[in-house]
């Protein structure tokens, strides 16, 4: 037989005299092999191949402990019989003993050793004579063992064989351990990428704050990739702004998933449910049904009408909103309803406030619990900081709060979320809007708007207002009564067909036109059928209905206006003077 060295690659740890040269080089070559293949099993097989060749034995096997450390599993085998996959209980057999004692085992006559597991020989027909088995360990951590059987020259294993195997085993253990670590890193990186993806999705759940003239603005600074905080705001077709801020108990992926769920539910329900307390009740029941591990959500949601400054909101266990009136002490608006997701029957109340130029500021406790040493920012601190960028648009003011905190070296252990409504900005915008309306002679003159429950009992309350408007537009008594009839029929259609006699809200706007009167009647009934989102013919609402016939007979124009969000219907009725 030629010298083993001549058959080995450059990394050969064995010199011409049969002594190993560099066990670290051996480990390095195995690590390189793993780096190329990313396959631990292939690396183990290559290590065994080299060991069998160097020690000149008939057979060999590498056993590694399984994840539970209960069994040793053969991960590579060389020789006449393949025993890959063979499982040996931890502590039994020669292999088990090597691992249990973390000591090399030299067995000259296998059949005389009681621990020898002869079953394998019987099954395979191989005859084991002598065994050399070395534990594979990194530091004090045993990961398995390498076993070689029967020297090819028939002699027993000598001290040099033992040293060689011990070093080869240690080198292989190092290479395998490295490979496993690399594997874990890959898995961690994958998880990291997924977390980043989740973070990206979460950012997209937040509104894009790109309109500096908007009277509402929010800001969310997570301290980890994903956040348990959220806020949202969006404009409804009638100009009202729906908003919410929330904080999920706990942090990490669990909290962020519950956040995503709550935010999505709000987005969806906020478009149709116009009563904040009722919205909270629905959200609460929904979250109670699925939430686990004692998690819950504190939240404020509400509706703000920039046209009037009127604001309605409900508070589910969240920090009280801060109401900041110009030249007055800021006040907190407390509420004592419980958070969402605890008890399905929890009751929520709708609070109302006329902002009348005030600011309405909401935040999560990450803001008020901001720390500078032992000191917490608190509501008073926030109240002061908002005036840092006094007179600037609300978005800049919120940014200034965060920048100021960071500049002063404040530290937060929690996500930081702010949402603010500046009614003064809305007032300016509406003034401009009104001016542009007046500037155009063709445009209609908005007389009044009414919002009322979809209830037949409200009809008699609304008729006098419409009657007065029609008279003010110059219609005679008969024409006026016809307008009343059409409006009544349209509202009854909504009660019966859009809301199907269930609760709902109807909004009515009355405009004076140079040549007559325009009524806009809006419902917020969900559109179950996507086809119905399309503008429809009046007849489709109530085929052959007498009410619809009346509307067409007495009005000059009756048509549905398409709504951008597709929620509900907007009917425009026009009556012109003869």
């Amino acid at each position, binding site marked *: 037989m030629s010298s083993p060295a001549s058959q080995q690659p450059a990394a050969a740890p064995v010199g011409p005299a049969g002594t190993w040269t560099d066990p670290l080089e051996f480990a390095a070559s195995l690590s390189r092999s793993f780096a190329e293949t990313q396959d631990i099993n292939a690396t183990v097989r290559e290590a065994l191949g080299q060991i069998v060749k160097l020690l000149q034995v008939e057979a060999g096997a590498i056993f590694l402990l399984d994840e539970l450390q209960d069994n040793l599993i053969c991960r590579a085998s060389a020789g006449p019989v393949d025993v890959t996959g063979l499982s040996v209980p931890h502590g039994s057999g020669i292999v088990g003993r090597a691992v249990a004692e973390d000591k090399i085992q030299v067995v000259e006559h296998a059949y005389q050793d009681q621990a020898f597991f002869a079953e394998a020989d019987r099954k395979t027909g191989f005859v084991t004579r002598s065994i050399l088995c070395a534990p594979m360990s990194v530091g004090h951590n045993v990961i398995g063992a390498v076993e070689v059987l029967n020297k090819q020259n028939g002699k027993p294993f000598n001290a040099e064989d033992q040293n060689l195997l011990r070093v080869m085993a240690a080198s292989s253990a190092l290479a395998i351990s490295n490979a496993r670590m690399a594997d874990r890193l890959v898995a961690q990186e994958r998880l990291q990428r997924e977390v980043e993806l989740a973070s990206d999705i979460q950012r997209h759940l937040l509104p894009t704050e790109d309109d500096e003239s908007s009277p509402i603005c929010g800001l969310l600074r997570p301290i980890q990739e994903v956040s348990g905080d959220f806020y949202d705001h969006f404009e409804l077709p009638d100009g009202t702004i729906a908003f919410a801020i929330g904080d999920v108990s706990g942090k990490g992926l669990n909290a962020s998933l519950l956040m995503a769920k709550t935010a999505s539910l709000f987005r969806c329900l906020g478009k149709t449910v116009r009563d904040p307390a009722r919205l909270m009740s629905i959200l609460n029941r929904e979250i109670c049904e699925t939430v686990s591990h004692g998690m819950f959500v504190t939240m404020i949601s509400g509706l703000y009408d920039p046209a009037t400054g009127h604001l309605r909101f409900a508070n589910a266990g969240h920090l009280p909103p801060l109401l900041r009136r110009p030249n007055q002490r800021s006040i907190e608006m407390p509420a004592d309803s419980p958070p969402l997701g605890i008890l399905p029957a929890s009751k929520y109340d709708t609070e109302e406030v006329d902002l009348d130029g005030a600011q309405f500021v909401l935040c999560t406790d990450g803001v008020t619990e901001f720390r500078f040493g032992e000191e917490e920012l608190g509501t008073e601190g926030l109240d002061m900081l908002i005036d840092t960028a006094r007179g600037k648009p609300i978005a800049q003011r919120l940014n200034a709060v965060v920048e100021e905190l960071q500049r002063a070296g404040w530290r937060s252990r929690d996500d930081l979320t702010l949402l603010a409504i500046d009614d003064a900005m809305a007032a300016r915008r509406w003034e401009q809007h009104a001016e542009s309306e007046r500037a155009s002679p063709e445009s209609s003159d908005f007389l009044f708007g009414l919002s009322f429950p979809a209830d*037949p*009992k409200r*009809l*008699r309350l609304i*008729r006098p207002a419409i009657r007065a408007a029609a008279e003010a537009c110059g219609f005679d008594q*008969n024409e006026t*009564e*016809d307008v*009343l*009839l059409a409006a*009544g*029929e349209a509202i*009854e259609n909504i*009660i019966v067909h859009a809301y199907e006699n269930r609760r709902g809200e109807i909004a009515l706007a009355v405009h004076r036109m140079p040549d007559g009167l325009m009524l806009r009647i809006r419902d917020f009934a969900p559109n179950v059928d996507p086809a119905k989102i399309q503008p429809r013919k009046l007849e489709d609402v109530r085929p052959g*209905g*007498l*009410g619809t*016939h*009346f509307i067409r*007979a*007495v009005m000059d124009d009756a048509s549905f206006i398409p709504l951008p969000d597709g929620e509900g219907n907007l009917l425009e009725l026009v009556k012109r003077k003869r």
Partner: protein
Amino acid sequence: MAVTSITEQSGRTVIALSGEIDMEEAPTVRRTLLDCLKQKRDILVDLSQVTYIDSSGIASLIEGLQTARKQKNDLALVSVSQRARRVLELARLDKVFTLHDDLATALAVTKS
């Protein structure tokens, strides 16, 4: 109240309606008509004081008419106010119902 009086005159039931007969009041009108019809008498509905009536109110009158005809009774309208007449005309029902100018005329009509 939409129904101001229910009286019996010359073997007929006279029901006087008033005010605004809309979706809120229509169920009361319908119930009153159907209850009175159980006595198997002809019915005269006085609409002189009706200031507003819409499709819901008209629907109760139609249901009353249909029930009456089924049991070989009649339901006629009396002293129809200008507003009610306009709506009946819009609905093209002014030829379906029998309209009497006043109660005396209605009561003078010999039962067929």
